């Protein structure tokens, strides 16, 4: 009897193994009852890589648009930094922008999976232009998550009626990764808040119709981050809102990045998202939905790098044969292919998880971290395969290398992603009995 209470070494090991497997499968295997999206065949086994007919049509549309509308004009916008208004307007007309706005605000209510699919195709054309589109999603997400009916109707509704842009204003000159350290303040005065502060690196900053702004509403320095900040919707044309000059960046130059100054801006209380004090949670919650599309953008760039490099390697000859027939180059292409496929699968998984209604922080961070690194490596290798030509601006790959770098920085730096991933998995590990 007693021997059953104390496991033998063998029993203990078997038990430990089962638990370990359980943890692994729990972390990576999807719930058996789910499928990719409505109507997608799953072979009865609960997991599928099939797209529905409708998804395929969305993908075809985005692909066609990228090749016919974005690629021809991308070099011009990269050289001049001119904001791509005509392309954005066309994308808006075709429904390629603002896809996740709920149907009752005039939107298409697309899931994150479909959004990622479209994003990847557009990013293939130009990540600068695609980031301008993506910043709309980022700005709208806090409103979609935490806005009340009036706020959604007012601020999301107008995005579907006209081709407007919006922006997400959290980062400051002195605080990027350290969101809890932001200094923009909002002080309650009657039924208004007086907003003062400076935001930096705000995508679409100069063209936004309204901003989501995170500001500190608590004076108590010991107040935890989860209660000290409030999210506001701030109209561009209120007094005191001053966008700065367009910043000239290394890459994604078509995208408009600026500093924004808020000086004694009067924000009505009805523009508070959620409630006073919950801003931090809303700002972070938006990322779970927007990190997969950013990973998708990086995947699109990596795919473009791969395609350009492959095409070139089948045209350029050296030492008597096409460079693709030299193993050194062929192996580089193979490694790029490995990275592209992996990026895509991770992005799809993270998007699918949140579409099932589950918390996807772990997968979203993995996808974004990996895809950012993959995009940079693929772009660098593409330049390498092009050789001297790759370094030259007449060829398309140097732009890819410049555009790729930001994927390791914005939407959570590569280091922050690793912090999140390690925190998530260690928390899970602590719950496991080894």
């Amino acid at each position, binding site marked *: 009897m007693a021997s059953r209470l104390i496991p033998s070494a063998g029993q203990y090991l078997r038990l430990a193994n089962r638990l370990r497997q359980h943890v692994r499968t729990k972390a990576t295997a999807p719930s058996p009852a789910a499928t990719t999206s409505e109507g997608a065949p799953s072979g009865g086994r609960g997991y599928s890589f099939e797209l529905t007919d*409708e998804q395929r*049509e*969305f993908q075809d*549309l985005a692909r066609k*648009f990228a090749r016919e509308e974005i690629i021809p004009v991308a070099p011009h916008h990269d050289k001049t930094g001119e904001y791509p208004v005509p392309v954005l307007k066309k994308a808006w007309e*075709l*429904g390629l922008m603002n*896809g996740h706005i709920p149907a009752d605000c005039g939107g*298409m209510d697309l899931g994150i999976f479909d959004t990622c699919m479209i994003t990847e195709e557009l990013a293939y054309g130009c990540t600068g232009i695609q980031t301008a589109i993506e910043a709309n999603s980022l700005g709208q997400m806090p409103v979609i998550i935490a806005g009340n009916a009036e706020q959604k109707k007012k601020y999301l509704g107008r995005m579907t009626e006209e081709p407007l842009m919006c922006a997400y204003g959290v980062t400051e000159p002195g605080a990027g990764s350290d969101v809890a350290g932001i200094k923009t303040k909002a002080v309650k005065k009657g039924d208004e808040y007086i907003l003062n502060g400076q935001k930096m690196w705000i995508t679409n900053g100069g063209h936004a119709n309204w901003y989501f702004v995170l500001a500190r509403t608590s004076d108590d320095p010991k107040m935890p981050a989860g209660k000290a900040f409030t999210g506001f919707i701030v109209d561009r044309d209120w007094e005191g809102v001053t966008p700065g000059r367009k910043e000239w960046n290394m890459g994604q130059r078509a995208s408009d990045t600026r500093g924004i100054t808020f000086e004694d801006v009067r924000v009505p209380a009805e523009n508070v998202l959620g409630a006073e004090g919950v801003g931090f949670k809303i700002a972070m919650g938006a990322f779970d939905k927007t990190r997969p599309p950013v990973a998708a953008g990086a995947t699109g760039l990596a795919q473009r790098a791969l395609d350009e490099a492959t095409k070139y390697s089948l045209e350029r000859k050296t030492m008597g044969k096409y460079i693709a027939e030299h193993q050194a180059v062929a192996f580089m292409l193979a490694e790029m292919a490995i990275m592209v496929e992996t990026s895509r699968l991770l992005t799809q998984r993270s998007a699918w998880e949140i579409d099932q209604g589950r918390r996807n922080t772990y997968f979203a961070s993995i996808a974004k971290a990996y895809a950012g690194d993959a995009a940079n490596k693929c772009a660098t290798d593409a330049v390498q395969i092009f050789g001297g030509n790759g370094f030259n601006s007449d060829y398309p790959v140097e732009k890819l290398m410049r555009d790729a770098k930001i994927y390791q920085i914005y939407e959570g730096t590569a280091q922050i992603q690793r912090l999140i991933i390690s925190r998530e998995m260690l928390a899970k590990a602590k719950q496991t009995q080894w």
Partner: protein
Amino acid sequence: MWPIFDYGRFVSIISSSDVYGVVWMRSLAQLHKMANLRVLVGVKRVIDYAVKIRVKPDNSGVVTDGVKHSMNPFCEIAMEEAVRLKEKKLAKEIIAVSCGPAQAQETIRTALAMGADRGIHVEVTGKSIDGDNNQTGQMTAALLDWPQATFASEVTKENDHLKVVREIDGGLETVKVTLPAVITADLRLNEPRYATLPNIMKAKKKKIAKHKAADFGVDLTPTLEVVGVEDPPVRQAGQKVESTEELVAKLKDSGVV
């Protein structure tokens, strides 16, 4: 051997160079009420124009398995023209029709996303790719005993008929066709629009009626047999000559002159 659709009186047809469309009018007596026109547009699922065609090893045809297929670009142009007629309030309803295998429904869906109101799929099993035969529109007109205006590069309504500018070898020809008529589309007729995402979603709800050829009492036994398909001969390398005399001499030697 082409199936005839029983829609009553047809008015005119808009089609690609290989498929056809039909505009239907409610009453011949109301010739002046063009807004009652219905347009039937034929759309065909073919190998995507960007794909490199490969002949099958047994020379029985071209490889279609696993190859990307899409709507014939000329069918897109025909669809676009029909949508423009509807936007100008000259047409009331657009119906997309496709005769082909089950996958032809994807093509009909694309037509629905572009603006067709409903679709008809006639299931025809077996191989079906664009043979570039340039016969369908003409055959349809002959079977229906209707006037035809093929290779249209411009279609305008004038009172009770259509004025069509046709692209011919020598230039442009303008013809006047009374309705009903068959029109086939040429490249310069228009530039097809993108289907918007909301329209793709709406297309899911539009109806596609399914039929078999037998439903119309049509016998599909082929009267033509494809004996073989071959690649065109590989282009031979040319020769450089130093002077006109040498050129003439070489041409004479080869028996060309």
